[in-house]
C-alpha cells in the first residue's frame, strides 16, 4: 500500500484577478458554477487528514475570491493541519489577513511577478504591485512567516537581483525563484517565455551569491530551467508519493499539472473518497515506484533522484506519459527539446503573450 500523503494542495478556485501568461492552471479553467461547495471542501479536508495529510495549501487561482475562505481556514486548522495561504496579495486587506491569521493561517506565500511596478503589472496584466507590497507589510505586521514566489522567464530573468532585493524588502523568509515549467498557459506562451542561455548564465551566479549572502536570513530556492539542462528536474518525491491536488471542480490530481495527460483517467471527490483515489485509482498508481519505467530510466542510477523526470512533460512532448522526460540528455527524444530551444529561445518575431483568462 502507498504511504500516506503529507500535503493537500486545495485549488479552491481558478478565478483570479491576475492574468499571468505562465499560470500553472490548465488552459481549460474551471468556471465558478462548477466549483466545489463549502461542504464539499470541508469533507475533502476531513478525508485528507484521515488519509494522513498534515499540510493544507489553500491555493487557486486566487483563494481570497472564495467567500468561505475564513470558514475553510478554521476547519483546516481544527484538524491540526498546517495552513498555508497561497495568494497574489490582491484583495488581502489588513482586516482580512488579521481574521485569517486568528483562524489559523500559519504561513503566507505571496506571488511577485517582477522586481518593479512596471514589470510586475505588465506580466500580471493588472495593477497589482502596490497591493502586493502592502500585503507583505500586513503579513509582517501579523508576524506570520512569508514566502515570496517568482516565476522566472525571458521577461524578468535579467531582473533577478532586483527581485531578490524586493523579496528582502518585503520581509520574506523564503524566496522561491522557479523557472517556468511549460504546461498549460506557459506551454502556449513558450516562445515568449523561454529564456536564452545568456540570461540563465548571467542569473545563475547572481542567485548563488545571494544564497550565500542571505544564508540564515532568507532562504532562496532556485528551480532550474529544465529545457536547458542535461537532466530533468525531479518529479516531486515521486508520483503519488507525498502530495495530492484537488482542483476547483473536485478532480483529484497526482500533480497540479496532471490534467495535461489526457490519457489519464481522473477521479473526482464527488464520486469517490480521497482514500480510495489515493490508494486504488489507476491515475495515482500509474507512475508510482519504478516498475512503469522504460529504458533508459529503468537501468539508470539517477532514477532514485529524478524519478525519470516529469510525466506531464513526457506526455506533452512525446505523446507517451511513461517515456523518459525528453529534457534528459539520455532520452531518445532530446532532439525535440533542442529544436524547441533553437526555434523559440530567440524567435525572429516574438508573439504577443496570451494572457490567462476564463473562456
Amino acid at each position: 500500500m502507498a504511504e500516506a500523503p503529507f500535503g493537500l494542495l486545495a485549488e479552491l478556485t481558478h478565478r483570479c484577478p491576475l492574468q499571468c501568461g505562465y499560470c500553472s492552471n490548465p488552459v481549460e479553467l474551471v468556471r465558478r458554477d462548477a466549483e466545489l461547495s463549502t461542504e464539499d471542501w470541508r469533507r475533502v479536508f476531513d478525508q485528507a487528514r484521515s488519509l494522513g495529510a498534515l499540510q493544507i495549501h489553500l491555493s487557486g487561482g486566487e483563494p481570497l475570491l472564495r467567500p468561505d475562505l475564513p470558514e475553510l481556514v478554521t476547519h483546516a486548522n481544527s484538524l491540526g493541519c498546517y495552513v498555508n495561504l497561497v495568494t497574489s496579495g490582491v484583495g488581502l486587506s489588513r482586516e482580512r489577513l488579521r481574521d485569517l491569521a486568528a483562524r489559523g493561517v500559519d504561513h503566507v506565500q505571496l506571488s511577485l511577478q517582477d522586481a518593479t511596478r512596471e514589470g510586475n503589472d505588465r506580466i500580471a496584466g493588472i495593477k497589482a504591485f502596490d497591493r502586493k507590497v502592502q500585503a507583505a507589510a500586513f503579513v509582517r505586521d501579523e508576524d506570520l512567516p512569508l514566502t515570496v514566489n517568482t516565476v522566472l522567464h525571458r521577461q524578468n530573468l535579467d531582473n533577478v537581483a532586483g527581485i531578490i532585493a524586493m523579496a528582502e524588502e518585503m520581509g520574506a523568509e523564503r524566496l522561491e525563484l522557479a523557472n517556468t515549467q511549460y504546461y498549460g498557459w506557459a506551454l502556449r506562451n513558450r516562445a515568449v517565455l523561454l529564456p536564452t542561455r545568456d540570461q540563465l548564465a548571467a542569473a545563475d551566479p547572481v542567485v548563488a551569491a545571494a544564497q550565500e549572502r542571505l544564508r540564515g536570513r532568507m532562504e532562496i530556492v532556485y528551480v532550474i530551467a529544465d529545457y536547458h539542462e542535461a537532466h530533468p528536474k525531479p518529479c516531486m518525491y515521486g508520483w503519488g508519493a507525498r502530495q495530492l491536488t484537488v482542483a476547483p471542480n473536485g478532480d483529484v490530481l497526482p500533480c497540479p499539472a496532471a490534467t495535461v495527460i489526457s490519457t489519464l483517467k481522473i477521479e473526482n471527490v464527488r464520486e469517490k473518497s480521497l482514500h480510495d483515489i489515493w490508494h486504488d485509482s489507476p491515475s495515482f498508481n500509474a507512475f508510482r515506484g519504478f516498475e512503469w519505467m522504460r529504458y533508459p530510466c529503468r537501468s539508470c542510477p539517477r532514477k532514485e533522484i529524478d524519478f525519470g523526470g516529469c510525466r506531464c512533460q513526457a506526455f506533452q512532448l512525446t505523446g507517451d506519459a511513461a517515456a523518459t522526460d525528453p529534457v534528459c540528455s539520455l532520452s531518445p527524444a532530446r532532439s525535440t527539446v533542442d529544436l524547441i530551444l533553437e526555434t523559440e529561445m530567440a524567435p525572429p518575431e516574438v508573439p504577443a503573450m496570451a494572457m490567462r483568462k476564463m473562456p
Partner: protein
Amino acid sequence: MISAVALDAVPRIRRGVKCTYDQIRSAHVVLFPEGVLVLNETAASVVSLCDGVRSVGDIALVLGDEYDGVEPADIASLVARLVERRVVDVDG
C-alpha cells in the same frame, strides 16, 4: 553540508513551525512551510526542549536522565540537522 552546532548554542523552534502529534502515524511531527518531519522518540524529546533557554549541553543533560547512552555530540548533530531543515534556529 551540515555545519556543527556548539554545546553552548541555544536552539529554539523557528517562527511558523508547528510541533504536534499525528494520530494517523502515531508519531510526533514538525510542520513547516516546506514540509513535514516525522520524529522518532529521541528527536521528539530534543525538539520539545528547544525552548530558546536551554543550550545543547543542557538538553543532553536532561535527556541523559531519561535515556541511557545519550552523547552530547549526538544531540548536537541532531540539532544541526534540525537547523539544516529550518526547523530550529540557534543563538550563540
